[in-house]
């Protein structure tokens, strides 16, 4: 549309590939390649092996994967419940109150996650709620960090919702709870699953707040990757990183299947 001559088009595409491939595709390919290698001093990795995967799928690494999955699922479900509740309650408020609620719930996006970690650490290392050293402190920090994203995407979906459906249901005598359960939530289901996927992905890759407060018996995958690279085991670290990416993508794929099935109803 913008460029008409054939030659110019090819030139533009060449520039695009020159920028896009090294910047975005190369990092992922490098991590993938390194996870199968033992040396990398030339252009291509050498000493191909699957030993890193064997160590990345058992023992400490397997435990870290379970830890990450449990943390991410718990945090996303809690965040989804809180965020959806807040978004639904906010939709019923007056405009002035709703803006205050929205501002409160987006605040965790703006606050650095390291500071969220520090504040949770400071607050729950002292009575009345002594959680330092337990897995709950990690889950709480993750929930706080992802609730903002759940709230944002659900409340955006609520404003796009056609009010005719709930009005029709209510005019036929349905109680508010029934309208919510049988009309509004099913209509919101696609955006709810999308929000759940987003929260899950963010929580799986969360490093900053986790570094501030993980207890020794609750080490999520990113922390393990950092520990591996910090002691110089870059190749093992990449294998664990590939496991992390694969687990995230797998769950996102399953969640997106739920979404397509819901939208056909």
């Amino acid at each position: 549309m913008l460029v008409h001559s054939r030659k110019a088009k090819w030139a533009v595409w060449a520039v695009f590939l020159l920028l896009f491939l090294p910047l975005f595709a190369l990092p992922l390919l490098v991590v993938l390649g390194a996870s199968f290698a033992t040396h990398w001093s030339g252009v291509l990795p050498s000493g191909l092996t699957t030993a890193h995967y064997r160590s990345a799928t058992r023992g400490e690494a397997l435990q870290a994967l379970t830890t990450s999955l449990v943390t991410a699922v718990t945090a996303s479900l809690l965040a989804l419940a809180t965020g959806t509740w807040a978004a639904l309650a906010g939709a019923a408020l007056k405009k002035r109150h709703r803006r205050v609620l929205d501002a409160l719930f987006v605040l965790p996006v703006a606050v650095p996650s390291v500071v969220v970690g520090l504040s949770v650490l400071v607050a729950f290392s002292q009575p009345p709620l002594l959680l330092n050293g337990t897995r709950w402190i990690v889950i709480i920090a993750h929930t706080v960090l992802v609730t903002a994203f759940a709230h944002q995407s659900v409340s955006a979906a609520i404003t796009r919702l056609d009010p005719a459906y709930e009005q029709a249901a209510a005019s036929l005598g349905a109680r508010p709870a029934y309208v919510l359960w049988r009309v509004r939530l099913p209509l919101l289901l696609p955006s709810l699953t999308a929000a759940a996927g987003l929260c899950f992905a963010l929580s799986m890759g969360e490093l900053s707040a986790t570094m501030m407060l993980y207890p020794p018996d609750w080490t999520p995958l990113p922390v393990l990757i950092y520990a591996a690279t910090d002691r110089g085991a870059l190749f093992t670290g990449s294998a664990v990183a590939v496991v992390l990416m694969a687990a995230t993508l797998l769950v996102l794929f399953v969640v997106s299947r739920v979404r397509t099935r819901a939208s056909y109803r």
Partner: protein
Amino acid sequence: MAEAVQKARVVRGRSRSSPRPFGALVWALPPIAALILFFLYPLALVVQQSFHPDTGGTSLQPYADVFASEGFRHALWTTVWLALASTAGCLVLGFLLALVIAFVPFPGAKAVARFIDVYLSFPSFLITLALLFIYGTTGIVGSFQFLTTPWGVLLAEVTYFTPFVMRPLLAAFSQLDTAQLEAASSLGARAPRIVRRVILPEALPALAAGGSLVLVLCLNEFGIVLFTGAKGVTTLPMLVYSKAILESDYPGACVVAVVNVLISVGLYGLYRVVSRRAGA
């Protein structure tokens, strides 16, 4: 019939402004209470710690100590210039790439747009991990210390955050009426002129929204800097981490945290105002 209409009107009235404002407020209370308990109260404790450390006494001494230290001023400067430079880089690069995907489409452009969505779901430190192989001491390019300089962090941040600019841009471009481009083109305007006079004005709201989001995310970025393992590059989040965890200097960490929060929240507030005004 009349009753149904009456009822429908009441329902519509409720969805606009509640006839029971008190009930709606009560329903909003539980999530707000959870937010206060798990987010605002801990944050308030951090502010309190920065003025009133556990060791006793209320004073501005921690602030004076931190502001006087060379390390803090250096970290503040590094954080701000890195964030500004990364944002500028992301804006230029993201605009160019989104322009090609939207207006000079090629086979597979859809797949590239899908790839960008997937890219956003990966953690940021993966980029630094990859750069360690490419530019690290035993890497592909060789043994020069590129990654331990701020330029390595800059490259990683531009790489990771550019998709955050491209997504709103692609959304904005898909709403642009292509008839405008055809008209400009048939009147003899060349591509650079069309970009400057037609596309850029339409893209400004998306650029402003994406750019300020990236600025805040860069100010708060921790994983990328941590993974470079560079002693020479210290940003504010890194300083919070090293003071709290490595040195156990909690009052100092709280002071740096308060400064970091003030900068980030101020900028994020600006972002919300800009994006609301732009209607994004």
